[in-house]
């Protein structure tokens, strides 16, 4: 699958792409294979952005410094917009619930469940 398909979705996130986002994106490609071809890259990128975003923020661990937090926020927001563009309603809801689960655990001081597992389940929600 061409990375060019998502080039324009990486505005301001180029450095993250070089720094692990591309690998995370590729890790989700298999999970989105059952979706419409045009939706696949957007959905894989949306999932990768959430995984990278909460990691940047330090969710469930030590709080990120403000500039890094803001980059994490942008990842989550970009992901939300990609899902609005390309995901069925049930998948949008499932992704949101995954972040709710992660953040509720972090707020309660409980162990945060692995993000990737939650997001792979969310992709099955259609």
């Amino acid at each position, binding site marked *: 699958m061409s990375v060019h398909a998502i080039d324009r979705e990486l505005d*301001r996130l180029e450095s993250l792409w070089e720094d692990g986002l591309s690998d995370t994106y590729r890790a989700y490609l298999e999970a989105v294979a059952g979706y419409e071809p045009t939706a696949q890259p957007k959905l894989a990128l949306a999932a990768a952005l959430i995984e990278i975003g*909460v990691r940047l*923020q*330090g*969710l*469930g*661990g*030590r*709080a*990120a410094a*403000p*500039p890094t*937090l*803001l*980059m994490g*926020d*942008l990842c*989550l*927001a*970009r992901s*939300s*917009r990609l*899902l*609005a*563009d390309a995901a069925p*309603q049930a998948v*949008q*809801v499932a992704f*949101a*619930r*995954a*972040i*709710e689960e*992660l*953040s*509720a655990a*972090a*707020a*309660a*001081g409980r162990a945060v469940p692995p993000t990737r597992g939650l997001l792979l389940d969310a992709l099955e929600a259609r």
Partner: protein
Amino acid sequence: MIGKRVRFETTNATEFVDITELLRQEVLRSGLRMGRLHLQSLHTTVGLTVNENEPLLLRDFEGLLQRLAPENAGYEHDDFARRFDIALDEPVNGHAHCRQLLLAGFATVLVEDGELVLGRWQSVFAVELDGPRHRELALQLDGEFSSPAHHVGRSAPPAKRARPDGAKGARNTDLVELELARQLLVDPEPVSEPMRRLVEAGGKRLRPKLVQLTAGIGPRSEPLRAAALGAAVELLHNATLIHDDYVDESTHRRGRPTVAAAEGPERAIAVGDYYFAKATRLIAEIGNRDVTSTIAAALEAICASQIDDVALRGAFPGDHDSYLRVVRGKTAALFAAACAAGALLSEASREVVDALRRYGDLLGVAFQMADDLVDFSPSSGKPVGLDIRQRVLSLPLIYAAEDRTVGPEIRRLLEGSLGDAEVRHVAGLVTSSGALQHVRDEAQALVDAAVRELETVELDGLRPTLIGLAHSAVDRVS
């Protein structure tokens, strides 16, 4: 019988604080079905009254109080040389005590079927006469009670209070408050408690108001869906504030400690994330793809602008173009999206949606400019110069820094560290320049432009309310 205290903060020397909604929430929480709500001011310069919440009428009342007990009439109470045991911070406020004599210090409101019994135009006011200050009222509720949960579960209680925009507007406002309360009720406590504190501390609820107003414009007007969308937008807004407060190192918001200050940045990040996700879910569950995309795009603009805002602090105070770019993302994007999303929900025409989006954008920028002006107002209730201290983009400061007379001194001061004295000095220089009036004029011009956007489309009778809302965005500092 239940007894309790409620606190609120005033922001002006004289101020009519509409506490109807606050009292309604207390009745709701208590489960009082049939009985009385007694309230009593715990201050000698705060009165209580029941009257109409109409902005011009409130100005009339203020004028009346001013005429009957002018501030500078000379009061024996203010002759400290003749008084004993006066506090070091005793204010000169004889006029405020005399004005309080004209009002009651206590009131009773009947409650029937769990609702305050108020006439269509009646609102309950606490009248600040010597503000800005933190204030406190004593409440007692007595009568027949049912379980509070039973009452909260009602989907659409009849509204007995009217706002200037009529009974429909009041009922819709109640729906958003109920929806917010309902959503917070089902969330885990570690996230819901900090958010509840923030939501209950106030806020203008402008964004949900815009959603609800514009959701009444098209052919498909559904108040419950509009309230759900309005509440989600408000939660989203508050989620961004929680992260902003950590980024800006703000210690207080709406008179209360920020989540980051009270519970640490880790909790603040988690609470912000939770409500970001929950709000996007609630919006997705409404099931209108255009609405979802509109709000998602706004959220992206907010986050991108926040990054720009922080980056620009290296070149503080910045310039007009940078300011506009940041403010259009950080503030105006959600105003515009709220307007457009409401209209989309009601299936208004594309022409109407676009006009309302432009209206919201202009209104949002004007609103932020007015907010900047508040930073220089000694009667705002906030410390003067907070934006300067935190090196937050501020248009009055940008203009003053470009001023030929005071600009060089301001820029010199901003290059160094900003202690109390420096902040006061910079704020004084800004105030002495023409910058505040310049910004006020610019904000007013934007409001005028926003109003013009409304002239080109059919708005089903809502134009006057939207115009009033736009003017109120800048009137708060005029």
